[in-house]
């Protein structure tokens, strides 16, 4: 009896420990809880009058995230990513044209997901950068559809992603690489200047 119990206990604890490790290294962390939070009826009910945010707010926090990554600062990056998510929930969609709205609708779930991953992985900057690559694609498409209140530069680093390359948006003409940070700050070139509208 005693041996049976101890075997049971040992095997339970082994499995728990094994799976704990997996969870911390794998990248799913707190997605489930954040998703349920966003389905909270209180948040949904209050969306119409309070949504006075703009796409520009999303871009501002994206640039903050980008700058954190150029400084190899994962925890600041995580904080900025959470701000992106926050700004996303406040975007006043009524100010978008139907075409802009169509593009925004296609992009927003993806932006939300990538910023959640970046926000939950403050200690894993390599993983943050993987998501930043995909997030940047979304933000670039978004800016192309809606325009930006400040002049932006679309930069491209040909080395990232097994030399497939990756883009990002910057508010300065000078290259500061968010994918390699201080290891290779100058890698990349300006591909396009997106002029401020209006």
């Amino acid at each position, binding site marked *: *009896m005693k041996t049976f119990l101890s075997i049971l206990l040992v095997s339970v604890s082994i499995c728990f420990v*094994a799976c704990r490790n997996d969870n911390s290294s794998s990248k799913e962390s707190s*997605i489930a809880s954040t998703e349920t939070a966003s389905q909270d009826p209180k948040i949904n009910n209050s969306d119409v009058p309070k949504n006075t945010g703009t796409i520009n707010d999303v871009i501002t926090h994206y640039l903050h995230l980008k700058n954190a990554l150029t400084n190899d600062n994962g925890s600041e990056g995580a904080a900025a990513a959470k701000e992106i998510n926050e700004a996303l929930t406040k975007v006043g969609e009524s100010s978008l044209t139907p075409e802009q709205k169509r593009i925004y609708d296609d992009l927003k779930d*993806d932006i939300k*997901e990538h910023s959640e991953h970046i926000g939950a992985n403050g200690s894993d900057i390599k993983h943050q950068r993987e998501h930043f690559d995909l997030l940047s694609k979304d933000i670039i498409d978004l800016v192309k559809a809606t325009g930006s209140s400040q002049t932006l530069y679309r930069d491209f680093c040909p080395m990232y992603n097994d030399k497939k390359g990756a883009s990002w948006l910057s508010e300065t003409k000078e290259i500061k690489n968010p994918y390699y940070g201080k290891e290779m700050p100058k890698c990349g070139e300006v591909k396009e200047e997106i002029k401020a509208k209006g």
Partner: protein
Amino acid sequence: MKRLKKILLALLIVVVLIQFIQPDRNQRNEILSADMTKAINVPENIQRVLKTACYDCHSNHTNYPWYSRLQPFGWLLAGHIRKGKAELNFSEFGSYSLRRQESKLNGIANSVKDRTMPLTCYIMIHKNARLSKEDKALLIDWATKAKDSLRLNN
């Protein structure tokens, strides 16, 4: 000695009692219209790999092992399944926005490449879910191509 016996007895009672708390089973049989196989091209060999290595946690239908009836193992499984489905559910893939579908395919290729999926804990027990070199190459190739064709078509 007497104390030890008491502790063991108490533990035994706890182990017996928790058996009555059974989590809900993730076993819907119908195939939804949002199923991935209806949204994008998934060749049969890929479907086979996905079903053995991924569907237990990433679909609406889990093939439960016998010990899932035994607590706390069943709870552990239920937790993994809940998180897995929140992250990616092949049974509802078609309901994701196109951009998100692309991202998910990208994520499949990446997590297979850097071996974060399937979870080590899972393949320790499910030996047949261990992906061979060929399986990995197949999956990565398929996910990459499917992603590119989504992008081209939209």
